[in-house]
């Protein structure tokens, strides 16, 4: 069942939008593309101050006991303003893994820091194209991790990582303090995502859950993150649609505003459609946490949001013509972000497969 936002939720959306629009500036984000290992500190400070880091975590550990719906609303606004760091999603994913599968000791150790935002979490399941490998490439033996995980978002700045590793009796969802891992920053087209390779060498770690359930647990965490990322993508797509609309009603060519040309006008109307479908799927997915169809709903949100953001990035630039490809105007910030979000939490191919396995009644 889709939901209507209640007053509290609407206030979260309004307030976070106001705060982000006041703080986030294109001119602060552009330089971050040209350095590695940096993120927008102002964004993260705001996330902590506003309590966004605590939003969806349990009250017992410093959280606010709200859920996907509320965090999704923040992520949507963060997507509109290009956020400035990936931790809203990555720390949330790490924290949920600990909350859902960890021991009381593990929760006590990590959750308060994650809720406060001073601890940054990363989630590292993927191996290249495979968002959730059946046979993870790193090993977990004797409470030690060994091996390399490439291209982990947030890993350049994270304190703790949740990983899927191969244990003696099958996959293990494990948690490791990253002070004991080597990380190598990956120069990327979207450097504020703090992407890094993680090299584990006898790195101490603890199991959260193991055996057959570990992979299901990892998929659940991935789906939770995917719903948040889908909100962020939808926000980005919405912003681009509005930017395109605003440009089309002011920029003139051949004696009229370009929005009067159907090639421009219909393209923006199609973007509206993609954004609204993505938004509807996001709202629905956020309301299905804990239900049987949650994974399918998350996949739908993820697929439609990725399509919306990719298409909006292509079309908004195209509608702008020459000015659209300049560094200064910064549309490429969205273009880059659309691609980094498209590969974080598993690409569209992965989510298509997850969805169809379920629709067809087969195992994932």
């Amino acid at each position: 069942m889709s939901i209507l936002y209640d007053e509290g939720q609407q206030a979260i959306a309004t307030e976070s939008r106001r705060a982000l629009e006041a703080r986030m500036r294109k001119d602060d984000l552009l330089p971050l593309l040209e350095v590695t290992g940096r993120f927008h500190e102002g964004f993260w400070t705001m996330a902590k101050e506003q309590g966004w880091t605590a939003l969806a975590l349990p009250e017992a550990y410093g959280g606010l006991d709200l859920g996907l719906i509320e965090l999704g609303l923040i992520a949507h606004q963060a997507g509109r303003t290009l956020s400035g760091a990936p931790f809203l999603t990555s720390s949330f994913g790490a924290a949920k893994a600990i909350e859902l599968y960890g021991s009381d000791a593990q929760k006590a150790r990590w959750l308060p820091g994650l809720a406060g935002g001073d601890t940054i979490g990363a989630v590292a399941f993927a191996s290249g194209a495979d968002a959730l490998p059946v046979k993870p490439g790193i090993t977990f033996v004797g409470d030690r991790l060994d091996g390399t995980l490439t291209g982990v978002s947030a890993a350049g700045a994270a304190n703790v990582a949740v990983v899927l590793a191969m244990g003696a009796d099958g996959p293990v969802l494990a948690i490791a303090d990253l002070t004991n891992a080597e990380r190598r920053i990956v120069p990327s087209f979207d450097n504020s995502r703090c992407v890094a390779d993680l090299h584990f060498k006898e790195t101490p770690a603890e199991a959260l859950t193991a055996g057959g359930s570990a992979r299901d647990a990892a998929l659940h965490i991935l789906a939770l993150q995917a719903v948040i990322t889908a909100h962020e993508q939808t926000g980005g797509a919405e912003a681009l649609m509005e930017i395109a609309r605003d440009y089309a009603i002011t920029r003139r060519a051949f004696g009229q505003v370009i929005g009067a040309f159907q090639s421009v006008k219909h393209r923006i109307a199609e973007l509206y459609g993609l954004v609204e479908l993505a938004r509807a799927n996001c709202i629905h997915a956020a309301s299905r946490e804990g239900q049987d169809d949650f994974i399918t709903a998350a996949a739908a949100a993820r697929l439609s949001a990725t399509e919306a953001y990719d298409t909006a990035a292509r079309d908004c630039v195209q509608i702008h013509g020459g000015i659209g490809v300049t560094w200064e105007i910064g549309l490429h910030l969205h273009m880059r972000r659309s691609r980094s979000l498209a590969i974080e939490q598993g690409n569209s191919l992965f989510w298509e497969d997850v969805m169809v396995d379920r629709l067809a009644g087969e195992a994932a």
Partner: protein
Amino acid sequence: MSDLETYRAKAAAWLETMVPDFGRDARQGLSEADDLALGRRYQKAKFDAGYAGINWPVEYGGQGLGHLEKISFDAEEMKHGFPNFYFGISLGMPVPILMQFGGDKAFVKERVLKALKGEEIWCQLFSEPAAGSDLAGLRTKAEADGNGWKINGQKVWTSWAHYSDYGVIVVRTDPNVPKHKGLTYFWVDMKAPGVTVRQIKLAGGDSHVNEVFFDDVKIGDDHRMSPVGGGFAVAIATLMIERYVATDSAGFGPHLDLFVELAKEIEINGKPAIEDGRIRQQIARNHAMRAGLDSINVRARLMMEAGMIPGAEGSLNKLVAVRSRQKLSELAIDLRGSDGFAFDEHASQREDWTSSWINAPTGRIAGGSDETLLNTIAEKVLGLPQDHRPDKGVPFNEIPV
């Protein structure tokens, strides 16, 4: 259980009892005439049971309930394939408009009651050969004739005109003013002298739409439902009802489950098609699209329940769903390969992919073409400018043809 859930459960139970007499199986093999007769009996049964005019005023024979009861009933009714489509247009647009804009209240009441009982059918005479998307460009004219009017011209795409007793019509009463300003709205007796109905056969083989010719058809001024020259506004009110009636994330084609079943049955390269990435991609993309529309529709209903006005995103339904259905239906034919040639022109477009494919183009045009819908979204929702329209403000009889 909420009141609404109780209502729905009761309706569902009643509908079940109708299945033996009126359901899909009961209609199998009937001629159209017999099916229409069955339909009239079904409509009468609905009326008697209090399921006709659910959200219409009690004074007109309705039940005085809300829109939510109406759509709950419709959703349940849809499952059984009852012969109700003959009355869809009639009770959907012209009769509600008659209630709102009709003059002589006693006459209106009688008509509404007979329409609700399935005894009379109304049609809607809008489109013309030279005025499809451009409704205001219509040419059928009514000239003053004594105390009344005389209509001459031709309408087209009129659903069920060949079974209709009455119709609502927009005509040009003044060609000397810009095109939107010279129109007037009337009702007409479809059995009156000078009215000729000719069925149009469609691409898929069926013929429920018509051309209607008016040859010196005389009507009184009491047939007038708008101010003289004020017909365009009433026409738009009629169309607005139409836009909000139709939501179906399957685009009025088959449910996606039927595609999944097909993909499980059929093999590509020795493996079930459901394992082929290309097929999986289409299933996943279509599911995501439909789930989005469903979520939009559910939210709209929740908003109405809460007394709010749903957002403009409801207007996406037909555009997105029918277009996608067309391509998915083509893929289903491809998938069947050499078994894909087979065609039963009586198959339902909601259950058969070939029927869905051959009827999809009608769905992309009727009730607002894709292009019209995109323009509406662009202009009404996003504030983009109207297209260039050289005929704007030009007296109708000075527009070049």
